[in-house]
Every structure is written in structure tokens, then in C-alpha cells.
């Protein structure tokens, strides 16, 4: 029970940071999604089911304070966390978290999340639909991947693993 409460607290905290501070570090209009590294961490630590449910809950929380499309972030984060769950390996948790593999998983999950998200988000928008989806997805994914390097080094130090392994 305690760990669920802690996760909920972290989710609220991340949402506050995401909506309050992250807009100030936008690069060419792209923002990182700091939920993804955390959700991937949950997936690698606790497995596919917990990650999928956590992804849905975190996405729903984001949707509630977003201006439109309730359920969109929930949908995309559910799918992305489900995929992240496939990388769960009870014997390799610390090794995966503290290595470049963590960044690669974040990149893959972020790409899935952003593609699903923007495919619906840009529906009906003016201009080139596909180009908008590709640009937004790649921009956000790259930024999120770069951000995920920080927790990777953190895990690497904490678990005394080499990030290059």
C-alpha cells in the first residue's frame, strides 16, 4: 500500500514539474515528457501489469489538467508502459536501469507514446498531418531520451553498475 501511495505522490510531483517548470526548458518548441523515464523505471522494477496500470493512471492525471482530449495521454501511456513491461527481467533490474539499455527503452517507449498521442492530437489540424506527427514525435522523443540519461547515471551510481554494460 505504501509503495502505491509513494507512486501517487511522485506522479503528482512530476505533473507539477511537467506543467510548471518544463515549459521553461523547451527547445525549438519541444518539451520532454518526464513521466516516461519514471514509468519505464516502474515497468523495469515492478513488471508489466503494474506499469500498464501506472501508465494509465499517470496519463489520466495529465489529462485531467490538460485543456483537451481527456483519455488521450491515458491511452498512449497505457500502451507505452505495456511495451516497457516486456523488458522486465527480475534478474536484470539493476543492470538494465543503470545502463544505456534504460535510455534505449525510454527512447522506444517515448516514441510509441508520442506517435499514438500525436496521431490523435493532430487529427483535424491544418497543414501536413503526417509531417506534424513525425516532427512532434521525434522532437519530444529525443528530448525525453536526453533527459533520461540523468536517472541512468543516478541508477548506475546507486547500483554500482557500469552504464556502458
Amino acid at each position, binding site marked *: 500500500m505504501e509503495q502505491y501511495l509513494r507512486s501517487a505522490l511522485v506522479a503528482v510531483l512530476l505533473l507539477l514539474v511537467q506543467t510548471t517548470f518544463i515549459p521553461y526548458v523547451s527547445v525549438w518548441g519541444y518539451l520532454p515528457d518526464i513521466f516516461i523515464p519514471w514509468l519505464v523505471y516502474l515497468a523495469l522494477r515492478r513488471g508489466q501489469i503494474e506499469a500498464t496500470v501506472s501508465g*494509465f493512471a499517470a*496519463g489520466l492525471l495529465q489529462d*485531467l*489538467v490538460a485543456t483537451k*482530449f481527456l*483519455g*488521450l495521454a*491515458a491511452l498512449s501511456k497505457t500502451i507505452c508502459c505495456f511495451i516497457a513491461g516486456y523488458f522486465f527481467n527480475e534478474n536484470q533490474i539493476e543492470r538494465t536501469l543503470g545502463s544505456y539499455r534504460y535510455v534505449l527503452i525510454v527512447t522506444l517507449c517515448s516514441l510509441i507514446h508520442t506517435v499514438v498521442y500525436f496521431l490523435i492530437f493532430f487529427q483535424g489540424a491544418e497543414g501536413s498531418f503526417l509531417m506534424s506527427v513525425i516532427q512532434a514525435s521525434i522532437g519530444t522523443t529525443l528530448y525525453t531520451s536526453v533527459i533520461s540519461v540523468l536517472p541512468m547515471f543516478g541508477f548506475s551510481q546507486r547500483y554500482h553498475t557500469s552504464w556502458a554494460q
Partner: protein
Amino acid sequence: MREALERIYDLLFGLKEYAILTFLIIVSLVLLSLNDNSQVKNIRSVATVVFGVGQDQLSFITRYFSLWRENELLRRVNIELADQANQLREAKLENLRLRQMVGLKEQSQYPLVGAKVIGKNLTLMRNTITLDKGKSDGVQEHMPVVSEAGLVGVVVAASDHYAVANIILNVDFRASAKIQRSRVDGILAWDGKTLLLKNIAKTLDVNVGDVVITSEYSSTYPPGIRVGIVSNVREQAGTLFKTVLIVPSVDFVKMEEIFVVTQTPDAERLELEQKAFRMLK
């Protein structure tokens, strides 16, 4: 029967990840389809208000960043505006100068060629200026140079596209000039420090403030061009002449656009004067 139930249970339990995924996707899609529902809107507005309180508590940090950015933006805008103001001021001054020059050109009875001063050689003794017009524009040596303020000098060298002129503040420059009020004649000269009107007898009428203009005696300079104003008149002991100091009308430091009077000296008059001079010798 029990075996069958157990088998179904095993199958479902084995697929629980997919079952959960399917369930959550369906819930998400249902929520997406309910976006315009008023109850959903109410829930969202409550969530936004609650979340807004938390954001408000953290806003003091973001306010610092936004102020920092705004400050930077304002500084940049300030520089741009200062630059624009400078350009406008330059354009206004240029406009004013050109208006004055156009006025001079319209009033002048002599043919004028407008030129820009592209170089100044101000070395006290022999001060010259370089003009962006030359022989191809009709500019030749010995042609007077004037501005809207008065006499500037004389062209001493000309190439196809450029010309160099001695300004009146040059020890090699001489011109016949006179006091406009009393019609007293003299020779305009620069001694390296002061512009003087020479050869004026002590008995002649010259006062401080008198306007000095070019006289008809010059074969180079058209008569009536303003030269300057008498600033001082000194009586020197042991000589027959006064020392008349003149402040030139033209500001040679600020001068940018001038005219060359494309009028060559009257050849017949020059020839006659030289002939007479030789006869006297």
C-alpha cells in the same frame, strides 16, 4: 466441468496482461468519446482548480525565470529601438541638409554639381577634402566649392571620378573678398590658425559682426558667396593695415555634402589680366 472451468481460468490468468491492457484501452477510448460531456467537464474543472493551487505555490520560482527572460527581451528591444531612433535621426538630419542644398541649387545662378565629401585631411596648415565627383561629372581644377552655408574652397586636383579641394582653411588658399556692409575689399587667407581678411587699411570701415563675401575681383570665385563673419579687428602698431579675423560660415567638421560650381574662369579676362601684368613688369 470443474476441469473446464480451471482451464478457462488458467487461460484468462495467462492472458491477464492483455486483459488489463484491453480494459484500460477501452476505458481510455470511452473517456475520449466523452470529452464533451458536461460531467466530465465539471470533473476536469475541479481538477484544474485543485492542481492550480499547487502550481500557484511553485510559481515564485517560475516568476523569477519569466522576469529574467522578460528582462533579456526588453534589453534586446531597447537596443533595436535605439538603433532605429539613430537611423531616423540620421535620415532627418540628411533630409534637412539635402533640403538646404536643394534650396541653394535652385537659387544659384551658376551651374552646380552636387558631391559628397568622402575624405577630410585636416592638418591645420593645408586642409583638404576629397569629393566623390571628378572629371567625368564635369569637375575640373580651379572650380570653386560651395555649400549652403558658404564658400568651402577650390578644386586643386581631379581624376575621372574623384576630386581634391583645398578648403579656405589652407595656407595655399587665396581669394578676393569684401565686407558686405561697407564694400571694403581684402584678401582672404589662412595663417595656419586663423582665417584672415588681409590688406585692409587702418582707416577703412570694418566692424565685428560684419559679413564677409567673395568679391567681383576674383576670376575664380563667383561674387557674393558668403565666407564668414568678422570676429575681431586688431590695430597693429607699426603697420598700415588692420588684422581682421573671420569665423567661417561653413562648419568644416560636420560638412558632408557640397557643390562644385562648374564654372571655369573667364579665359578672355584672364588673358587680358596676364597680358597687362606682363606689360607692367
